């Protein structure tokens, strides 16, 4: 026997409201998924670059290892250096050989003497880069300094913009979805006012009357989340070749890392896709539940 509040029957009776609600939920959750992916990837990228050597100091030929060690001690005393790596002329030659192993002519022409020794430096925070740069500039025996401050600054600026614009979009869309849900469920409650009155007279609790409306909200949320997840996953697969080209040389970008679980945002993998589904589903169900609960509480007031 079908229950008086048979859910599929209720949904079939108002197909346009169902489509509008699910579509709105889909748009909201799709934008949310783009926002989350962008924030996660830019944050991971910033973090990746921040951990890379951010300053490379090239020394003149007369700078010997002992004076470099003194410089290292001086840098350590600042407390602003996370790590550094000294690359001697011989090591520089090895790197050069590795990079040009397919070109014997280039290998023949170069010896360790003509390559500079260098020091790769990472600071504790990007904000110390300029200070360290100014300090090293005045050091004797420093030939050139290359640093990635601009790259990191641009990335941080991008990440902040993405966060702010994305958050505004998501908030606006979540609000729109709430209003759509309020209207859709409010209309249904208005249509069913007589039925609701009868149910109250035969002893139905408020929760019994609200339950089908909340179930509807949860259905909209899960359908919207599933659609958003499918489209987002397809989009990720579509952009994968372009991203591979863009992020050439960047190894693994970690998103979540626990003892027993590690999920990378790059390269794209099945765990990332599953995590996205979980996040979208929880978000969809939460929006659907809160929206429909609020709507039914508001319109069922005696």
């Amino acid at each position, binding site marked *: *026997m*079908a229950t*008086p509040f048979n859910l599929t029957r209720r949904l079939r009776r108002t197909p346009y409201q169902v489509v509008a609600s699910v579509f709105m939920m889909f748009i909201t959750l799709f934008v949310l998924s783009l926002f989350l992916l962008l924030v996660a990837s830019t944050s991971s990228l910033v973090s990746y670059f921040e951990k890379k050597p951010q300053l490379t100091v090239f020394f003149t030929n007369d700078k010997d290892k002992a004076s470099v060690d003194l410089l290292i001690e001086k840098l350590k005393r600042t407390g602003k250096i996370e790590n550094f790596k000294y690359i001697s002329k011989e090591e520089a030659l090895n790197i050069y050989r590795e990079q040009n192993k397919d070109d014997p002519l280039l290998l023949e022409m170069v010896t360790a003497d003509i390559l500079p020794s260098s020091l790769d430096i990472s600071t504790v925070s990007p904000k110390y880069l300029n200070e360290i740069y100014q300090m090293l500039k005045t050091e004797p025996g420093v030939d050139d300094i290359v640093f990635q401050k601009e790259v990191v600054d641009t990335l941080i600026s991008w990440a902040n913009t993405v966060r702010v614009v994305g958050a505004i979009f998501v908030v606006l869309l979540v609000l729109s979805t709430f209003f759509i849900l309020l209207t859709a469920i409010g209309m249904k409650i208005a249509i069913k006012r007589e039925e609701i009155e*009868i149910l109250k007279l*035969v*002893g139905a*609790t*408020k929760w019994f009357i609200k339950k089908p409306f909340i179930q509807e909200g949860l259905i909209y949320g899960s359908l919207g989340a599933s659609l958003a997840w499918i489209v987002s996953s397809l989009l990720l697969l579509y952009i994968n070749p372009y991203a591979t080209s863009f992020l050439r040389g960047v190894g693994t970008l970690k998103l979540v890392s626990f003892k027993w679980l590690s999920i990378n945002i790059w390269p794209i993998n099945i765990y990332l896709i599953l995590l996205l589904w979980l996040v979208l589903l929880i978000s969809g169900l939460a929006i659907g539940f809160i929206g429909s609960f609020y709507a039914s509480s508001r319109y069922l007031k005696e």
Partner: protein
Amino acid sequence: MILFDSVSKSYGGNITALKNISFKVENSEFVFLVGPSGAGKTTILRLINRELTPTLGSVFVDDWEVNKLPDAKIPFLRRKVAFVFQDFKLLSDRTVGENVAVSLEILGKNQEFIAERVKRVLDTVHLEEKISFFPGQLSLGEQQRVAIARAIAGETKVLLADEPTGNLDPKTSWEILKIISKINKDGTTVIMASHNVDIVNSMKKRVIELSEGKILRDQKKSRYN
């Protein structure tokens, strides 16, 4: 047990539906409320199931002081005190079986129990063969029988009937009354508002006669002229 203790009810400022009335209805009693339109019959019924609250005085159903029940408890009162209306108040887009099942679903009964109980209750009101019909496909008498079946399907201790035969022809009215009488014999307290002199007189039950919100007469095995 239902007790009215010095109950008055006013609507707005100047319409007084009940004026300081007191009476008691024992368990399993059958009581008719009679009187002209506006005498206060329906107000009494609506005070018992907390559709209304008294302006003065108290209404008790067993140990519950109805007028002081918190909102969250009202559904539980209405499960004990079922109402049969003159206009039936059936869910028009639900079948007969589904209309009766509502009373059991709100109690959280499982589908197997509901199916069994619905069949049994529809058998009591002689409608078992119309379980899949919609209210619009039934006669008025049959619709009222569905409403009665819905009212007694759950945990009903008291049946309130507000002119249940008001829209029915004499033959159908008698059928409805026979069903209500059987429900009363099975132990359910019945309070029935009625205009129908023939029905009241033939039943020889307690009659509370009202006029302008006051009790004119309260007699056992009485007649109504």
